[in-house]
């Protein structure tokens, strides 16, 4: 019935299994299963001595399949795979059966039934082993080049890091300049460096790297291929197109500043400006803070403009923009410095800054500048989530009314020279790029990572990484860390020049496939593509992208896809073995 030669090893686990499962009986029953060439019990299968014995069996008995029935595969799958390697048996022809966690320990109340179950489990393992074939890990060659899209700080820093690892980098920047928003800004928190200086330093370093190529006024217009080898078309200066081949792509396209709609908190009126605009004003002011020749003495900051707007209209931004509280506080300190110098409060008489906020989100070390602002005379007033301040113009001056929750909701009126709308970050308009790269975008409009906790720079498209504020609002150091992290992931893919993949991936039976496209839709990794075999349109699985999850399998109407290790035949023989009755005579009468 079978010409397989399978070794079966049933472990006592020093009593952990054998106290509840009659391991000798299990062995006696299963050694008559078709294809079983050796069946033994061990006190501890994982011990060196037992492994050595199994290795000798594999060699002496020319075993071509192996079943170890012991503890959970989480403990020893790798142990026995390594043992198979040493014995010269293909590691994927080894099957582990879980007799401890899922049998003896769970059924300590009935040893007879535990033994029956163990027999069925081991028979299923044998049945699967009979249908194993030698498999090899797949080696995918990778191109040691990376494309970075966006030459803001995150992109520039990522490029530098990769270049230092010997990987070639192409930077594609849509605008004519590098540095993004940072280039436009003066003193930035938390380290009081000038944004322009940071960019200058970075771009100088980039220029010195021979293996970095920078394209400005450039866009990615076409992409094909997959991780390890993407082929791209770059359009530069609007007309000529350059082809590039890279192994990975880092998307670091940055953010935009929220632009309030006209009338929102008085926006559009003279003296009402966004935080970004105000920051530029402060940065530009060498000594006294003034506008149009008039000194600025009373400033009102209204926080959460364009952020945390739940239940609003279409372009409402329900998320928190993360950087604005700290930026506003920092800018207020800078504004005070410009107006009053670094001296104590008495030097600053007549200069007032009112911060109308909801929650002060100066997390972590940003707490210190917030404290500093409090000490330096900034007044903080909390307004209710559903009770925003109102900005009017009265007698030519701006008047802000707010119900201050710190005063039990009492209304306060403030006459202001300037109203600063603390505006958040919004996603950059990137429709064309999204279309080319097939990158997923979240409900907030930023690019979506594959896992928000543990894989914050990876996307569902292997080899396409997201960095900096393209993924969501961030401060400068956070954005740079994100860029470096994306560089790390790119290097992890490309540095060795190849990637080894487990062979448990999907495979299409082209004789059955009629190309309906269901699998293409089902695969979140883009591992399916249309191809043609002898003129017939069929699906093809890209091994480098397939994760072996199997999402394509149940959707195929023709039952044309299988995963190695979990084929129909394997699963069905296992099911049959798991349900088959255990008959006592089997001990004596070999099953044919």
């Amino acid at each position, binding site marked *: 019935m079978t010409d397989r030669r399978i070794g079966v090893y049933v472990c006592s*686990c*020093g009593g*952990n299994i054998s106290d509840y499962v009659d391991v000798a009986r299990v062995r006696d029953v299963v050694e008559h299963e078709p294809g079983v060439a050796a069946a033994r019990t061990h006190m501890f299968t*994982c*011990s*060196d001595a037992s492994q050595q014995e199994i290795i000798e069996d594999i060699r002496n008995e020319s075993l071509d399949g192996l079943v170890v029935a012991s*503890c959970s595969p989480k*403990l020893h799958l790798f142990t026995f795979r390594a043992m198979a390697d040493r014995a010269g048996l293909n590691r994927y022809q080894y099957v582990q059966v879980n007799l401890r966690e899922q049998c003896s320990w769970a059924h300590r109340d009935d040893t007879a039934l535990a033994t029956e179950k163990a027999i069925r489990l081991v028979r299923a393992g044998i049945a699967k082993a009979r249908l194993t074939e030698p498999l090899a890990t797949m080696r995918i060659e990778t191109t040691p080049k990376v494309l970075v899209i966006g030459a803001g*700080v995150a992109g520039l*820093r990522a490029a530098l*890091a990769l270049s*230092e*690892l010997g990987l070639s980098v192409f930077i594609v920047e849509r605008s004519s300049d590098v540095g993004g928003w940072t280039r436009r800004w003066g003193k930035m928190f938390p*380290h009081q460096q000038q944004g322009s200086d*940071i960019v200058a330093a970075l771009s100088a370093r980039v220029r010195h790297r021979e293996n970095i190529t920078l394209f400005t006024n450039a866009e990615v217009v076409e992409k094909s291929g997959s991780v390890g080898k993407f082929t791209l078309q770059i359009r530069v200066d609007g007309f000529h197109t350059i082809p590039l081949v890279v192994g990975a792509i880092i998307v670091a396209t940055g953010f935009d500043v929220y632009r309030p709609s006209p009338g929102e908190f008085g926006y559009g009126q003279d003296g009402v400006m966004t935080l970004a605009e105000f920051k530029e004003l402060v940065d530009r002011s060498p000594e006294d803070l003034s506008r149009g020749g008039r000194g600025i003495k009373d400033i009102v900051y209204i926080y959460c403009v364009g*952020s945390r707007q739940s239940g609003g209209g279409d372009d409402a931004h329900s*998320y*928190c923009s*993360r950087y604005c*509280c700290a930026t506003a506080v920092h800018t207020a300190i800078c504004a005070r410095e410009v107006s009053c110098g670094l001296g104590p409060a008495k030097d600053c008489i007549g200069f007032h800054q009112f911060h109308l906020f909801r*929650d*002060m989100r100066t*997390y*972590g*070390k*940003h*707490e*210190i500048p917030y404290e500093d602002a409090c000490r330096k005379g900034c007044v903080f007033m*909390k307004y209710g989530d559903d009770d925003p301040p109102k900005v009017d113009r009265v007698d030519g001056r701006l008047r802000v009314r707010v119900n201050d*929750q*710190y*005063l*039990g909701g009492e209304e306060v009126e403030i006459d202001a020279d300037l109203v600063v709308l603390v505006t958040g970050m919004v996603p950059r308009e990137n429709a064309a790029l999204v279309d080319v790269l097939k990158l997923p975008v979240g409900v907030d409009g*930023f690019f979506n990572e594959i*896992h*928000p*906790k*543990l*894989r*914050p*720079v990876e996307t569902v498209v292997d080899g396409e990484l997201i960095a900096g504020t393209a*993924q*969501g609002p961030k401060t*400068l*150091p*956070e954005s*740079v*860390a*994100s860029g*470096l*992290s*994306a*560089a*790390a*992931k790119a*290097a*992890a*893919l490309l*540095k*060795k020049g190849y990637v080894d993949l487990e062979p448990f991936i999907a495979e299409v039976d082209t004789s059955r496939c009629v190309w309906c496209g269901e699998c293409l839709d089902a695969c979140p990794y883009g591992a399916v593509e249309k191809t043609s075999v002898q003129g017939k349109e069929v699906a093809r699985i890209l091994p480098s992208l397939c994760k072996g999850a199997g999402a394509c399998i149940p959707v195929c109407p023709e039952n044309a896809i299988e995963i190695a290790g979990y084929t129909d035949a394997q699963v069905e023989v296992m099911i049959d073995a798991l349900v088959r009755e255990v008959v006592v005579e089997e001990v004596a009468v070999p099953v044919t």
Partner: protein
Amino acid sequence: MGNGGSHYDVLVVGGGIAGMESALTLGDMGYTVLLVEKEPSIGGKMVLLSKVFPTLDCASCISTPKMAATANHPGVNALTHTEIDEIIKRDGGDFLVRLHRKPTFVDPVACTGCGQCETACTVALPDQFHYEMVARRAAYIPYPQAVPKKALIERHGSSPCSFACPAGVKAHGIVSLVRCGKYAEAFHLHMEDAPLPGCLSRACYAPCEAECTRGQLEGPVPIRLIKRFMVDRYYQEHPEPEYGPPEKRRGETVAVVGSGPGGLTAAFFLAREGYGVTVFEAASEAGGVLRLGIPSYRLPKDVLDRDIKNVTALGVEIRTNSRVRSINELKEQGFDAVLLAGGAMDPGRMGAPGEELEGVVDCLTFLREVNLGRQIDLDGKTVMVVGGGNAAIDPARAALRLGARKVLIQYRRSRAEMPAHDWEVEAARAEGVEFQFLKAPQRFLGIDGRVVATESLSMRLGEPDSSGRRRPIPVDGSKQTIPVDLVVLSIGLRPGTTPFAPELELEKNGRVHVNSATLQTSIPWVFAAGDAVSGPSSIVDAIGQARRAAFSLDRYLNGEVLGEAGFDERLPVVDKQAVLARSPSLAVRSPREKRELAAEGRARSFAEIEAPLAETEVRYCASRCLDCGGCSECRECVRACPANAISLNMHPEEEVLSVGSVIVATGFKLFDAHLKPTYGYGRYPNVITAMQMDRLLSPTRPYHHLVRPSDGKVPDNIAFVLCTGSRDYKVGNRLCSTVCCMYSTKQAQLIMGALPLADVTIYYIDIRAFGKGYEEFFEQAKAMGVNYVKGRVAKIDQVDGGSLMLHYEDTTERGGANQAEHDLVVLSIGILPNADALKLFEGEALAADPFGYVREPNESIDPGRTSIDGVFVAGTASAARDIPDSILHSGAASVQAAGYVESMRNGR
């Protein structure tokens, strides 16, 4: 590259989420990585969480694959339970690393993680992975998801009591077994190390108790009495030993000279090894000093008889009335080796006139007569005992029991110099023995050859003599005559080795000359122990020495090299102050009451003086044990382990290696909620920390359900106090901890899921829901009904039934002083820098920022780079961070570390 040891491209210190991420990233790049984690599992704190915000993913489900990947990555070597001793930057730009692997006392290869050792273990310790909400055992698997999933044993060192025992009896093990009611196991444990538990539990001077750490509090654990209960119980149930001669027999035979404690012990251990053992005893009965020297009111003879059976059951033959006069004769009789264990039997003489008179006897002779039951009538007589050792006390007390009217002890030095144990002196005094210090007889006066009086002189103390004690100098004109009927001389016993003088090298004082480590004599096949070697000493010392001599003798007969190795495998003794520091709030627990028979009544009877402890009393006394060493060495795990994986004599393994770059991923410390005393943590059981709440909400929780710690009731009104230990000058931490708002919001959501009827209130200052998806998560919690109150909590008081009154100021209300009652309060404790990170480096120091975190000198451009070129920092070691930010930061550290390694390779 390196000075000894192996080389890795990168060392990652810390196996939490940041460390694992860094190691995996670098491993994938193709670099070799050494990951060092001090805890017994990688995974850090994240794997202990219930779920993670804002996705409510199960923390275990997303951590464990990462842990498995780290452990199995071909480029990553993950060492757990390992401490870095120092990292030194070298001129070439690489780093020298010294580390040591802490012993787990379990062979990791053999261990299958089955947990049977845990079930068997007799020591309960607070479980650090459950933040001390429940006990674990000293033998334990860190938690079900641990990687590697292997048991280990918590041992701080030898417990002082066990370490103190000259015989190596595991006093701590016996106490912990008795504490559990495992009396027979305790007996067997004793027999591992000494075969005379009955005698020792009565007549031992109990150095274990003298060393007991509890002695520094209200009094030591009464180890000897605990042992006595255990032995009595066992002997009652087992009048005969449960075993016979060992199955494995050896051809060689050994002669043991003397059947005192040393001889019996040596015979026992040799017989257990399978040797044919014959004990030669000069007296008519076996036991030596145990039978002849110790009166039965201290050691009943039936106990001694039963102890001797422990030895004879192994097939040991004891030949009484057999004085050995020549060692060579024994050889001629066919013995392959001889062990001399004769006692100090030759009485010393004072050399005073009248010493030969009838009625002047040495203490040994006197006690031998008494103990062998000779009729001695001292009714109404006066007895003087001369001497200051324990050997003076016993004859004095025996004389009282024989009817003496007056018993007097004269000692030529003062009380302070007296070698006798205090309690013996006190017991004798209580019974009516009179002590005269700084007095000694110079002459014995007799009539008809029989002593009638002594002539004593007073003494004063001069300069210290060779023994280190001050020399007594007679005071002129202080002569005093005292009428006596009997004088017992208890001075200077000498070993009875004289007959062997021609055959064996002896010291001047008559002791046998031996190699002090091996106890081998000048004749290779002769070993010696006990008083014959060290002069008169205690029973337990003799036993310990005999065991050592038997060990050497066995090695000798096996043809093995003799030496120190292999005999004493004790760990260094733990520091008692450290033990006390572990439990700063120990309450005084009354030691048991001393329940001896009243002194007046007992002094006239040879019945045993000391009353036994009752069972409940014994277990109470045993529960006072502080488990100084952690593990008690009771060996229950050794018996339980099916894989034979327990190895109690592991030692730290040191390693020196070189690495190209270092990533510090040492994580954070949690704020200690005790430091905020107004919140009552540690005093009010229903005030817990958020880490504890996270454990309670986890499926692998310490309790079977979310119940409050005061009484197991399901809580229905739970409060969270945010910013506990954060944004707070008073506790020295001005920083925001970044994660508390969100984890509290997460816990609130989970509580609403687990207890739909419960009210949950979060007291906050600002809700810092700043990350991706956080604001939405916060809104979701509000929509579920979580009540957010803006205000700092000033104080928490406990009210009736364990509930808690929170005093807070609602900053959104005018004059907002307020209070509210809750039945469970969660302190959302903050994150603090882990100062350990800064101590890793020798030489060039790793700079800290003003808050104590690892400093990143150019964070805006090179986040993750530290003050030392080539050293990087990942995760919360440089700032409070949530998980995604830690991951990003780890990526930054690892790519820069890789860059450093490349620049080194290219010789920059």
